[in-house]
């Protein structure tokens, strides 16, 4: 029973860190459960998907009620993230743990580099692209569908890129137990002309359905350990909820530096696990 409070505490920590830094908890939960609690990587990925759905659903509810997300764009892209997540969930059962560990190490390195470069990842701290750079140019030919997904003050373009990126994000989500926001937010913001705050909110909206498609495969194939997934998810929910109320009072610069250090250390551990 002594492991139960530890699992809940780990969930609280991952949820709080993730919420403060604008990341889903997945990049933390999978390493914690594998390296800290000795779970097989696939079980950790499955538990992480459950946690990701909880945080995404809670955040998406708020974003929708504040009209911050682009529902049309999110639902259009999540057709592809969900389909890819379904494929990823099936592929994950065929891949060896070592391959998943190496992929996860690569993901952690990518997240670390993104945070060092100061993109703000999903934090929404990069300003509003629509306010900074209103797009008054005529829409590209053949991009009418994308234009129909536009919101007030900005025009969505390059839907084809969005589809390809969404397929990749969905695959990564189901294979590695993460939300995939690290792919979707830059994709929508930099590639499709969506303001960062809207991209962040829309990505959060999409994460739930994406992880749900992958999560169902894990659930029905016996990949979810309820004794691990439930307390961790509960902790993540509590941690993310508390951190959201503390976000304005926390010095994020040092937290971000510490987080990058932890990610790099964890990437090395996962890399070693994959190569051993």
């Amino acid at each position: 029973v002594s492991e139960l409070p530890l699992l809940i505490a780990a969930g609280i920590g991952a949820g709080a860190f993730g919420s403060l830094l604008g990341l889903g908890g997945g990049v933390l939960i999978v390493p914690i459960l594998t390296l800290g609690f000795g779970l097989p990587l696939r079980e950790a990925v499955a538990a992480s998907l459950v946690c990701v759905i909880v945080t995404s659903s809670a955040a998406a509810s708020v974003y929708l009620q504040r009209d911050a997300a682009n529902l049309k764009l999110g639902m259009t892209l999540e057709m592809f993230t969900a389909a890819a997540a379904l494929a990823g969930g099936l592929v994950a059962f065929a891949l060896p743990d070592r391959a998943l560990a190496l992929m996860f190490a690569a993901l952690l390195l990518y997240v670390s580099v993104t945070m060092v470069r100061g993109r703000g990842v999903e934090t929404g701290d990069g300003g509003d692209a629509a306010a900074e750079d209103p797009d008054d140019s005529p829409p590209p030919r053949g991009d009418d569908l994308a234009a129909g997904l536009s919101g007030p003050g900005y025009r969505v373009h390059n839907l084809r890129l969005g589809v390809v990126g969404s397929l990749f994000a969905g695959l990564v989500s189901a294979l590695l137990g993460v939300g995939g926001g690290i792919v979707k937010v830059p994709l929508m913001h930099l590639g499709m002309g969506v303001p960062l705050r809207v991209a962040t909110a829309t990505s959060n909206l999409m994460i739930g359905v994406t992880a749900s498609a992958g999560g169902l495969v894990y659930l029905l194939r016996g990949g979810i350990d309820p004794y691990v997934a439930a307390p961790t998810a509960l902790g993540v929910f509590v941690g993310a909820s508390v951190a959201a109320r503390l976000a304005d009072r926390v010095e994020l610069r040092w937290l971000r530096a510490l987080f990058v250090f932890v990610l790099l250390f964890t990437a090395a551990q996962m890399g070693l696990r994959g190569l051993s």
Partner: protein
Amino acid sequence: VSGRGIEPGNGLGIERGIGRALGIATLASVVLVAVGVAGMIATQTPPLDRAFPPFEIGRLPADVAAFKPAGFLWLGLLAVILTPSVRVVASLAGFAALGDRRMTAVALVILGVICLSAFLGAGG
């Protein structure tokens, strides 16, 4: 879901109703998970015991009625995983009410993918 006559996705309209539905579903699923975890504490179930009970949807009602922690854990986890579908169903109703056939079709495709996940996950 309200908002007839207001363009969805443009900052006003159906989003608030969908957000409320999603919030209620999320809270309900987390409460079920919390009850299951409380049951684990009460019965001193070690979480890292490798032999965890299998997910059998037919056993859920009986396990929940018998107040078995595993019943609440599985029901809660199932509810968590299906919560995003509540949002898609609410969106489907909202877009259909607005007469937006393209987005109604998009919502149906998403629900189709989720159903396909369940079918293939169950070994179909």
